[in-house]
Each structure stands twice: as structure tokens, then as C-alpha cells.
């Protein structure tokens, strides 16, 4: 049983919650995630540990309300209980004195990048962060990043904040002007793919954090398998970060769509039940 201590709305459809989980908080490192199940009938979903405090014994999770489980999670309030949380899971992001690193985030990808940024800065790396979104209000944790990163560059599709355009355009300029040693991209699959394709000819090491469907999250079921460098790898125990130049992104996209029908059905049933048939379908 895990108690929600705090909840915040960060953007339309994006919430963050702070949860009491002292053992997980004590061991959480950049790159790690948890698997949670809200209640007895719930599914197990993976969520990145976006922040943690050893002293407070808490972890912070960020989520976009795109399906039944995240929508239900978004309805919980401080004081409510999440039945199961297991973690921290997944490999830690490898930390070295890289030199100049560039973090590229799309939407909710900020959640994964923030602890990585902090860990990179703890090792005195120079870090440029590029955050992109459709529009200004969808850029997550701008201020938090500003406090820690050496340089923060924003892009929006509509030009409401930062540069109008895609993160890859800005990334290209950064790579061309500086001696970039490492790029870490987290966000929509197509964005991570575009970043990896961009950096490949420059020979810049690129890590992407993958988000396949998971069930138990500890390497036992193989639901989260992805093809990396021609080999089947389990994202939960061998990832979730992989070399972006080796990932079969199309395969990942195909597998991510496998349960789309069921996901829609579950969400619809949930909304109907939630408003007991009184409200219009969303």
C-alpha cells in the first residue's frame, strides 16, 4: 500500500504525484522506473521515477492521461492509496564524465530526463537541454530544468514558446557548433527515431528510453521485447535505455499498437461507469 502525498496538474492531461515509498526512494537512480497497479482489478503499468527524495522517502511520478489506468490515476487525491508499486526497476543510466551532453525531450519525456540531468550535473558534465512540445503549455517542468541545466532550448510546433519547429532542427545546430559527446532522447517514438537518424551520421552516441508494453516488469514475461541491433532485448531488465542507432523503431511502434482496440474499450467502459451513463462520451 502506497499513499499519495501530493498531486499537481502540470499541463492539460499531464499530472504529477508524490508518493510515500521510502525503500524505492532510497535506491532510485536516473533511468529507473516503477511498475504500479492502482487496485485489485488494475493492470500493471510502468512509469519513470521523475524525481525522488531519500530524506523525505518519496518518489515523484509524471503521467499523461491517455488511457484508462492513467485517467484513473489522475482522479486519485492526496491521501488515496495505490495498491502496488514495485521498483526501482530497469538499468541505471550510465554515468561518466562525458563532457558536453544534450538531452532532448518531447512532452512527458521530461519525466525521464530530469533525474538524468541531475545525475549528469553531479558529475560536472556540461548539459544542453532541448524540450519540445506542440504548444507552450505542454512543455513540462521548464523551470526545474532551467535551474539545473547549462542551457535550455525550447521548441514548439506553433511557435508559442522558443523556436517554432522541431527539436531535431535545434539539435542539429547544437551538434554542428559544439563538441557533443552524448545525446539522450526521450519522448514519442517517432521523435526518438528522428533524433537517432540525425545523430548517426555525426557519430554521436545516442541513448533512447523505450516505453513498450510491460506486464510484470522484472524480466519474466517478455512482453516488452524490442529488437535492438538484430537481437531481441527485454526493455524492463536490459533497458529501458538502448543505443538509438540500433533500435528497430518500426517494430516498437507496431508492438505498441497491438492492444489499441482493448485500450479504447477499457477507457470507454471506465468513462461510462465513472459518470454512471449521465454524461456524453468524451
Amino acid at each position, binding site marked *: 500500500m502506497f499513499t499519495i502525498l501530493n498531486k499537481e496538474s502540470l499541463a492539460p492531461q499531464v499530472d504529477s504525484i508524490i508518493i510515500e515509498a521510502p525503500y524505492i526512494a532510497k535506491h532510485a537512480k536516473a533511468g529507473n522506473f516503477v511498475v504500479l497497479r492502482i487496485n485489485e482489478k488494475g*493492470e500493471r503499468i510502468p512509469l519513470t521515477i521523475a524525481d525522488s527524495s531519500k530524506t523525505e522517502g518519496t518518489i515523484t511520478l509524471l503521467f499523461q492521461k491517455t488511457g484508462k489506468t492513467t485517467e484513473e490515476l489522475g482522479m486519485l487525491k492526496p491521501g488515496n492509496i495505490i495498491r502496488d508499486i514495485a521498483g526501482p526497476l530497469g538499468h541505471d543510466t550510465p554515468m561518466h564524465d562525458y563532457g558536453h551532453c544534450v538531452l532532448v525531450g518531447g512532452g512527458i519525456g521530461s519525466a525521464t530526463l530530469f533525474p538524468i540531468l541531475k545525475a549528469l550535473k553531479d558529475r560536472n558534465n556540461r548539459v544542453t537541454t532541448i524540450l519540445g512540445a506542440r504548444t507552450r503549455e505542454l512543455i513540462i517542468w521548464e523551470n526545474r530544468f532551467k535551474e539545473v541545466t547549462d542551457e535550455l532550448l525550447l521548441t514548439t510546433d506553433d511557435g508559442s514558446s522558443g523556436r517554432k519547429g522541431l527539436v531535431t532542427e535545434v539539435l542539429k545546430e547544437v551538434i554542428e557548433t559544439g563538441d557533443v559527446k552524448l545525446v539522450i532522447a526521450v519522448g514519442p517514438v517517432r521523435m526518438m527515431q528522428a533524433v537517432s537518424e540525425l545523430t548517426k551520421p555525426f557519430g554521436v552516441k545516442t541513448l533512447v528510453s523505450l516505453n513498450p508494453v510491460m506486464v*510484470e516488469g522484472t*524480466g*519474466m514475461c*517478455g512482453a516488452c521485447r524490442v529488437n535492438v541491433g538484430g537481437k*531481441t532485448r527485454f526493455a524492463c531488465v536490459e533497458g529501458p535505455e538502448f543505443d538509438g542507432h540500433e533500435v528497430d523503431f518500426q517494430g516498437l511502434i507496431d508492438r505498441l499498437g497491438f492492444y489499441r482496440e482493448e485500450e479504447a474499450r477499457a477507457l470507454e467502459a471506465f468513462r461510462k461507469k465513472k459518470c454512471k451513463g449521465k454524461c456524453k462520451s468524451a
Partner: protein
Amino acid sequence: MRTRDPEKRRRDFKEVALGLTQAQALKEARRCLQCKKPKCVSGCPVEIDIPKFIAAIREYDFKGGLEVIRKCNMLPAVCGRVCPQENQCQGSCVLGRKSKPVAIGALERFAADYEVKSKAPDAPVSIEQNSIKTAVIGAGPAGLTAAADLAKLGYDVTIFEALHEPGGVLTYGIPEFRLPKKIIHREIERIKKLGVKILLNWVVGRTQTLDELFEEGFRAVFIGVGAGSPKYMKIPGENLNNVYFASEFLTRVNLMKADQFPVYDTPVKRAKKVAVVGGGNVAMDAARTAMRLGAEKVYIVYRRSEEEMPCRLEEVEHAKEEVIELMVLAAPKEIIGDERGYVKAIKCDRMVLCEPDESGRRKPECSGEEFILEVDQVIMAIGQTSNPILVRSVNGLNTWGAGYIVTDNEGRTSIPGIFAGGDISTGAATVISAMGAGKRAARAIDSYVKELSLAKK
């Protein structure tokens, strides 16, 4: 043993085998010769005094019979259902030489089920506690047995389980129609009454390290984390949509109750034509589950012949009764997908059997002929291997093969105070052999802790 009508049972998840009636149990118990030197006992990995429990059943003392079993085995209702008795106790029964061996497994199940039916209140447990903390990692058959035995010896035992339910493979692997979940719950509750605590969602190696457990005062640790990681064939098409590992397919249904989607949130894909690859118990479980999810046709694709199938005899018989087709001497070489990345067929080599290999089974070789089976789902049930999470978090732990822990027969590892047993030390095997390992390790832990206290004095 009585079973439900295959036509009805193959579309629901209710238990298939019905157990013995009291009259049948008495009749069967009377067949036992009560051998002075019982061979059956030496065939039992957890050393149950089989003649004694059968003698009690003969005298209508069903509760007494169960107590005899429980001295050695805290999971009688489970073992009475899933043990491969034909290779163990019953395989050693002297009656088997001339006619049928005593149905020991069915009698064990009868004794366990009788208690539930009679609603007899639990006898109060009185154990002299020594307050010495011992830890067990994994709440599967090995861990539960080690924990129960340590608790009976007076230890303060905590089990750490990674999943949200205890039971290990009994919970996520074996289907409801073969082992109802309420039976597992009941037996686990009884183990808790011995004083065993179970912490769920606790991934030792990540949530807490083994070193931290020792710092918290645990004197010894038993690792029984199983061999949960699925093996794959490394053939083209394995990552297509609707290719499942049996572990995922069964976990979705057994642990997450995907058969009841959308009442439960986890879905599973229901297919029309399903090929299950493999010939073990897991393959049978997956095939029979696919049938119950509504498949029109289920094939079991196996590269040797029926005779070499490693599953229990009863499982393949039940599968055949449920109109599951065995496609033997067939080795998959490619899974063929459509333009959307979904399975549409599986291509196999036809095999012939040659000389026996190192396992003693005749080795299959390609005949040169191949064929294509049109299916819309493929389930891989070709075995499991070690799970790396805990093992890689412990420095100095000797391993063999794909990361299995090296132990002696009593479960001692290369690190004093750390013991291991079950699939994580032997590779994938049976529930009962894991329980036997848990039992031996509990004894070894007891003597280790006693020696440690003596040394301190």
C-alpha cells in the same frame, strides 16, 4: 480420477479434475501394501511418510492423514494436483510392477480437500520461537517450503516477493482449471499462521539489496526466485504481434485475470487458430488456456514425438480430450507476418527421430521437408531460463550456465549465509523438486545459524 466433460470444460476455467469420492479414496487406500521399506517415500522429494498417511485414510482418519502430510509438506492440495507422481512416489510403488500403482497423488488431494469440505477449524499452532530473523526471497514453491520449515523450527521468517501476489509459478503460471487460485491462497494462509510474514512488491536486489537485509539483522537468506525468464527460438518473426511467450500469455490470464477483461484491466488477445510451440506442461497449459479463450483450433507444435514430450502424461491426455491437435515432429523455422506486422502463419521443418542425445531422448533431425501452418497466434513454450535481477546484484555469488546459482545438495552457495534452491539453482524443473530444495535448505540454514551462535559464544 473423475474429470469434467471435455466438451463443457474446454470453454471455461473451472477445475478439470474432480478428485476422488470418499468411497473411491477408501478403496484406493486399501490397495496400499503398507511396505516395511516403502519405495514410494524415497520417490518423494519432500519425504512424506506416505504409508502412514494412507493408513490413516483407511481408518477414516482423514484429518490425521493430512497432518502426516503437513509435517513434511505445507502445500498438499497443490501437490496432489500438480506433482508428476508417475515419475515420483507412484513411479516407485511396488504395485506398479504388476498392475496400477496406488494413486498416491489423488489420495493426497483427497485428504487436503476433505479438510476444506469438512470446514474443520484449524488446530492452533504452538511453536517455540527463537526470534532469529531469516529471509526468503521469492514466494514460490521453494520459498514457501523453506519459509514454512524455518518457521516450524522457530525462526522469525520474512518472505520477499517481487509480484503483487504470492505463489510464484503456482499463481502466474499454472492455470485456474488445473490449480484453482483459492486453493493456493488457503495453503499460503496456513503458512502465514506459522508466523511467516510476506512482503509483496519487494524486488530484492532493487528495492533492497541482500547486504541491506543482513544489516537489518537477517542471519541467513534463502534465494528461491525461480527461472522466470522465457527462452526464445531466435527465428524470424518472433517479435510480430500475436506472438506470445507462454509466460506472458499465462501471466496475463492467471495473475492479471485477462480472461475477465474489461472487468479486469489487463487484456489478452483471443485468436481463432493458435500454434503453441513446445511439449512441456507449460505448453499444455498455454494450449488449453487458448482453447478456453475461444480458439477454434489449437495445435501443439513439438519437434520430437509424443513419447518424448516432457509434460505429465495426464496433461497431454487432457489436452487431447479437449480437441487440441498434436503436431509432432515439427520444428518451427519462421513465423510469417502480414503487412501490419501480425502473425498469419508458421513455417516448420518436418523432423525425423535419430539416435538418442545426451538427455536420453531420440534426437530430432530435419527431414528436408517443410510445411506451413496457417495460424493467427503463436505461443512459445520452449522453456525458461534464469532471471538476472537478483543474481547480478550480489558480488561473489558463483553461478553456472545462464546465471544459475551454484549450490551443494543442501542449498549452500559460495557465500556463507546465502542459500538457494529450486529453479534458480537447477534450471527449470518441477514444483515438487523446488519444494524439496527448500526443505533441505531450511535444515542447512538451521545448522548454519546454530554453528554461528556457537562460534560467537
